């Protein structure tokens, strides 16, 4: 079992989520990074190869964070996306591999000819 969160801060100006766990680890992750890596089936699809690349989320905001049982939290984004359940385990993973995962995402965007900028 991964650590349990002890503190969650939403930095609304810099759009950063700060989360501290009881195992002493603390991560700061941009809202956009969390949004494009949402574990929801709307993003991941229902299997390998069915992932849907998320684009234009540079300015996405977080409206609310809700606990799900004892193991996860639901992030409600201001673009209406609210179906991702971020387990403590997944948040650890996102925090730990932030640099690589973000780089991978940028490469996928470039390859698809898409952008982080909102389309309108």
């Amino acid at each position, binding site marked *: *079992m991964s650590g*349990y*969160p*002890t*503190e*969650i*801060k*939403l*930095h*609304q*100006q*810099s759009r950063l989520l700060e989360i501290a766990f*009881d195992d002493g680890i603390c991560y700061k992750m941009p809202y956009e990074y969390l949004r494009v890596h949402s574990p929801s089936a709307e993003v991941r699809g229902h299997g390998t190869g069915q992932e849907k690349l998320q684009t234009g989320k540079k300015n996405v905001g977080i409206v609310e*964070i*809700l*606990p*799900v*049982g*004892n*193991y*996860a*939290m639901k992030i409600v984004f201001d673009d209406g996306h609210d179906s991702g359940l971020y387990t*403590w385990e997944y948040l650890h993973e996102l925090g730990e591999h932030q640099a690589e995962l973000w780089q991978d995402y940028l490469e996928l965007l470039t390859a698809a000819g898409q952008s982080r900028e909102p389309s309108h």
Partner: protein
Amino acid sequence: MSFSEADVQGALKNLTDPNTGKDFVSGKSVKNIKINGNDLSLDIMLGYPARSVWDEIRAMIEAHLKAALPDSGSIGVNVTSKVVPHAVQRGVKLVDGVKNIIAVASGKGGVGKSTTAVNIALALAAEGARVGMLDADIYGPSQPAMLGITGQPEMLDGNFMAPLTNHGLQAMSIGFLIASDDTPMIWRGPMVTQALDQLLRQTRWDNLDYLIVDLPPGTGDIQLSLAQQVPVTGAVIVTTPQDIALMDARKGLKMFEKVGVKIVGIVENMSTHICSKCGHEEHIFGAGGGEKMCAEYHAEFLGSLPLDIRIREQTDSGKPTVVADPDGNIAKNYRQIARRIAVKVAEMAQNHSTVFPKVVVQNT
């Protein structure tokens, strides 16, 4: 005055509660110490229901104090139990009238989960707790028959139902709401989870110390929505010693771990078969499987029960063993398991480490 309150506390610090393994002072059980000359009186408030052992504990404490405080005159110890409510998640709605929710689950069907659940519930009630039974098996509700309850719940004001009662338990089951015993619930997942939520929240539970939830087997919709939406204190896993049952029990346990529901412990059912003719006891499903699983997953072994025809007959007839034969060995076994569960739950209730933190919103 030849001794002080601190002397009394000091003496009780050296006495271990055999049920919790902790001394009475650090267990915060000692209240209301009164010293009058050489006479002493105090209250012991246990965090778990234990009516059947109150006298034993009182005698033990009185003897201990007499020995530790040789100058004392009369010693009066009053033992009671008070069950503490469990700390729950922010966001997860509390269930009105319920202090603790204990789920009884198994990976596999047919291991005696419902029988174990009902007997544990009755054993907790026999120890003086207020107990409810929620039958979460929507497709195959068995609690109405096991509790010997027929009839429909009375509708109260608003959308609430009164639980049905028998043997001192408050009970709710989908079985009370359907027309007849052979009416199948032909429902898809979302209907089932909604039904569970209604049975839980639209029943007017009356001041329960424990609500026992008898879950269907498996790791699907019902179990997941229970973990996500219901403030469960912990889960009890029932298994038989058979390898094939243990395999599924492990999956059940891992599922609860994954979704952050604490495991209270494991009950091994049908550990041995006792021949009703000759009384010979035999490990027909293999020996020691439950204990091995506990060691593997660092879970507590809560106890084991024999495969005894009386358990089946009594429970099937609507009068489970704990009420049918309260002085028998099997009932004693169930009571011991129930006490272990209650002690563990009391420890969990005091642990607030898994309460969801407040989300701080900053303009930074």
